[in-house]
């Protein structure tokens, strides 16, 4: 039991790569995460996105490609930049995660890709009419199809984490918004800012090569839950991901 604080202290002593705090030095509430932990987060992100890709490819009946982008810490004010800047317009699906590991899961599709996505999940027989671009032009069926995509991708992602970490994760129902990145990320910042100046972000991307459809997935664990996230060991993760890949 006594070993734990020591281990934490050792982790803290190892400074992480690039915690950039533009214009001001990191404050007392800036999080420091060891490089080894970020490596673990990266593997978790891979496992989550892998599961999400499997789920998505089964829905649309096409193979998908997976791209695990990064796991890193960001000053809160830079979170909107992680997804193309605050003014980029996206279709966002957001899930709040409760349970042993709290956090937010955000799935983004570019504005231009919304019609592509809808065509994949709700193919319309014999109609060549172009789908309208925004949320206003969408009917109830299309809205609920998008929410369902959020549900399936989100739960697939979280299931992988849940299995690897041995913890129970309870996702909220998804929320849907068609808006600017800044507007769809600032509720995350509000949640985090109450306890920290830094966000830990696990970023990955699922792509459908034929249509060019891309879903960017961001998981932002709550700072209080980082201990849960860091307790996995690489050797526990590797074989399972590998065996699943072989299975498909």
């Amino acid at each position, binding site marked *: 039991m006594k070993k734990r604080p020591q281990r934490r202290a050792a982790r803290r002593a190892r400074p992480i790569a690039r915690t950039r705090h533009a214009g001001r030095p990191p404050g007392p509430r800036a999080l420091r995460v060891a490089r080894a932990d970020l490596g673990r987060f990266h593997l978790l992100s891979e496992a989550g996105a892998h599961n999400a890709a499997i789920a998505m490819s089964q829905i649309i009946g096409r193979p998908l490609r997976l791209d695990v982008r990064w796991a890193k810490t960001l000053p809160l*004010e830079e979170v909107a930049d992680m997804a193309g800047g*605050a003014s980029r317009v996206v279709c966002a699906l*957001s899930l709040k995660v409760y349970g042993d590991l709290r956090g937010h899961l955000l799935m983004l599709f570019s504005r231009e890709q919304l019609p592509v996505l809808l065509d994949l999940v709700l193919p319309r027989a014999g109609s060549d009419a172009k789908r309208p671009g925004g949320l206003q032009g969408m009917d109830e069926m299309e809205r609920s199809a998008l929410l369902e995509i959020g549900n399936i991708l989100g739960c697939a992602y979280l299931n992988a984490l849940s299995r690897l970490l041995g913890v129970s994760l309870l996702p909220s129902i998804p929320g*849907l*918004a068609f808006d600017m990145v800044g507007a*769809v990320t*600032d509720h995350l910042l*509000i949640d985090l*800012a109450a306890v920290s*100046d830094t966000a830990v972000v696990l970023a990955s991307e699922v792509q459908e090569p034929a249509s060019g459809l891309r879903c960017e997935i961001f998981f932002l664990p709550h700072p209080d839950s980082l201990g849960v996230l860091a307790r996995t060991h690489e050797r526990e993760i590797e074989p399972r991901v590998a065996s699943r890949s072989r299975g498909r």
Partner: protein
Amino acid sequence: MTRPRSLRAGELKVLPAPGKLVIHGLGSCVAVFVYDAGPRVGGMAHILLPGPPGKETGNLGRYATTAVAAIVEESIRLGARRKALRAKVAGGSRMFVIDSGAPRPTVGDKNIQAALRALQEARVEVVAHDVGGEQGRTVVADLSDGSLTITTVRGDPRVV
């Protein structure tokens, strides 16, 4: 043509005309713009939370209470008159409909209330506001005429 200075989450800036300040993609956060039309000086903050947890002193722009006080103080330092200061408030949306099940005030509502309360305490009259709703806003504050231009992904810009 002045290039607007962009304010990210938790940032605050006070400057004289002909400066411009912009916040891209304001969701549940709140923008408070305080301005004196005489010397044409004012500032804006991109506020995340109603008030600081505990006795934190850094990040003045992040909290409604500290941001309003800091803008007023800095504007006066740059030549604004306390009694002539006017405020415009925007933001505080509820971005995701999942939040709508919650009857309690949303984070956006709390931010709006805290900003209005802080302005009232600082005796700054609120002359315009564009708050709430379910969509994000991009707001541009123009120090040369004191206007606040609000754009959403849905429609035409609105000037208040």
